[in-house]
């Protein structure tokens, strides 16, 4: 039954056996995630939406900026969704193809979501890990700064920044990223506080590894599970923030567009009976958010050891 470890062949057998039985944390997590039907459905939806956002443009018969002149004065009657004239989702109030614009808007919203979340995660994790690891007065000062920043209404400051430094996607990225690292840093700090008393950190200290190296090599990788969960839940928040600002007309500038800007335009036009201008962007917005929330919840169940 058990391999005889005194012979060479037996040792190889034992090694194989150990290999087969090994169940890593990640494999475990993947299995738990796969059992969660809503999360898997969310993941599939997310992949489809990403494909749509990045490759959907190849199916479009019109570009995002082309104006279909014959339809322009007649959008309410003739501008609806139709396969025949190539406007799958209809046209917007200026006679531009809504399909191409929805593809573009989804792409920009996803990009803002991912980049914003990435900035938040990188800054927040490092900040929290450093504060938690060094502890003492450093920790006190760093977390007090977070407390103070948290009390500031950042949506207003962000709009103030967009007005002062000009509206651009880059500014939006920076502004949104700046808002959102605060929560992340608190979470990372809390987890670091428990991690830094573990034996492997003690061992690293004992052999004289420098503090920053310990943080990057030993603390941060162990925060990864938590970070991934919160990052997935951050992306939809970022998308909502961006859409909020674009809805007010202060975000992405024409001719570029985002889901929020499209929803805003559609909402402004709907009294003329052009309901598709609201419906299609809204559909993609809601499905994207739902998908992210479900995937996030699934990942939390799979990776967060607290909730098991």
């Amino acid at each position, binding site marked *: 039954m058990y391999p005889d470890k005194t012979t060479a062949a037996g040792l190889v057998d034992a090694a194989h056996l150990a290999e087969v039985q090994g169940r890593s944390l990640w494999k475990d997590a993947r299995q738990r995630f796969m059992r969660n039907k809503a999360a898997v459905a969310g993941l599939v939806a997310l992949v489809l939406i990403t494909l749509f956002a990045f490759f959907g443009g190849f199916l479009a018969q019109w570009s995002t900026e082309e104006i279909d002149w014959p339809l322009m004065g007649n959008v309410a009657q003739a501008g609806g969704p139709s396969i025949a004239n190539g406007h799958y989702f209809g046209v917007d109030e200026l006679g531009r193809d809504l399909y191409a614009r929805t593809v573009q808007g989804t792409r920009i919203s996803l990009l803002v979501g991912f980049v914003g979340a990435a900035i938040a995660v990188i800054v927040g994790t490092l900040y929290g890990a450093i504060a938690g690891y060094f502890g003492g007065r450093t920790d006190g000062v760093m977390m007090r700064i977070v407390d103070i920043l948290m*009390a500031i209404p950042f949506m*207003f*400051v962000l*709009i*103030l920044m967009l*007005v002062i430094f000009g509206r651009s996607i880059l500014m939006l990225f920076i502004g949104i990223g700046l808002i959102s690292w605060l929560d992340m840093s608190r979470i990372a700090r809390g987890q670091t506080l428990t991690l830094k008393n573990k034996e492997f950190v003690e061992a690293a200290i004992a052999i004289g590894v420098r503090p920053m190296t310990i943080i990057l090599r030993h603390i941060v990788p162990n925060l990864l599970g938590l970070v991934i969960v919160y990052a997935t839940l951050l992306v939809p928040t970022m998308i909502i923030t961006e859409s909020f600002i674009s809805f007010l007309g202060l975000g992405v500038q024409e001719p570029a567009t985002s889901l929020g800007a499209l929803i805003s335009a*559609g909402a402004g036009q709907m009294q003329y009976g052009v309901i598709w201008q609201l419906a299609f962007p809204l559909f993609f917005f809601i499905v994207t958010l739902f998908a992210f*929330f479900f995937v996030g919840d699934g990942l939390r169940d799979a990776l967060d050891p607290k909730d098991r």
Partner: protein
Amino acid sequence: MFNFVLKRLAIAIPTILILIVLSFMLMFAAPGGPFNSERPLPPQVLANLEARYGLDQPYWKQMSDYVVNVVTRFDFGPSFQYRDRTVTDVIMQGFPVTLTYGFWSFVVAVIVGVSLGVVAAIKHNTWLDYVAVGISVGAQVLPNFVMAPILVLVFTLWLGWLPGGGWQGGQWQYLILPVIALSTSYMASIARITRSSMLEVLNAGFIRTARAKGLPTWRIILGHALKPAMLPVLSYLGPAFVLMITGSVVIDVYFSTGGIGQFFVNSAFSRDYAVIMGITILVGVLTILFNLVVDVLYAWIDPKIRY
């Protein structure tokens, strides 16, 4: 308790000052001054204007003047866009409107949210629970700027029951749609938080004791379970307040209710920095004070907190 409040104030006051200084620095960094127009003013006129508004003073003097004026007299200076009015006038015009529907949204969100959460927890794993959870998950992806057009589409354009905008001194017909649009997502969050904390409380030993001595369910819920279950909800009210104030910008823009949000966005488009800063600072101060109140309430209700 007194010391606790003092300690909280000791954090709140510097935060307010930092906010004011930060906004001032942002505004100062902005390109162009308030009197740069298409047609350049004669240098002498410009100099007089700048002297009148103190813009010829050095940086530190301007900053300290601004901070002192704001702190001591709530004076945010003159508005650049509405030349005959000060920022304080503009805020005073919009603020009562925002306060009115903000207050009602808050009341609706808390009452409906808490009831929904409590019902879901009591009827755990029944269809009532699933309906409540479904509503709160659905409302999560319907932020106010999505809710507002949908409500107008259904209740104004299709059914024709309610006006799709305007204020008219706050008559109830004009209040309903803004209040629903603003409160939905917070109501959902409150319901979710109430449900999970209520479930936890209902499993606690003292609830079992209350059941064992034969108390009717409604007395157990109202007399014993509700207070401890409200603690997480209470701590959510701080962030909810911020989100609600932020959301009021969308409400004002979409429903043309004329609150401070409308002035905020108009000023953002016309680069009226003074008004934007004034509103940002006002909202910041309100947020900080509100968080302070929530913290104190929390410490007062929760016996576990020592201060």
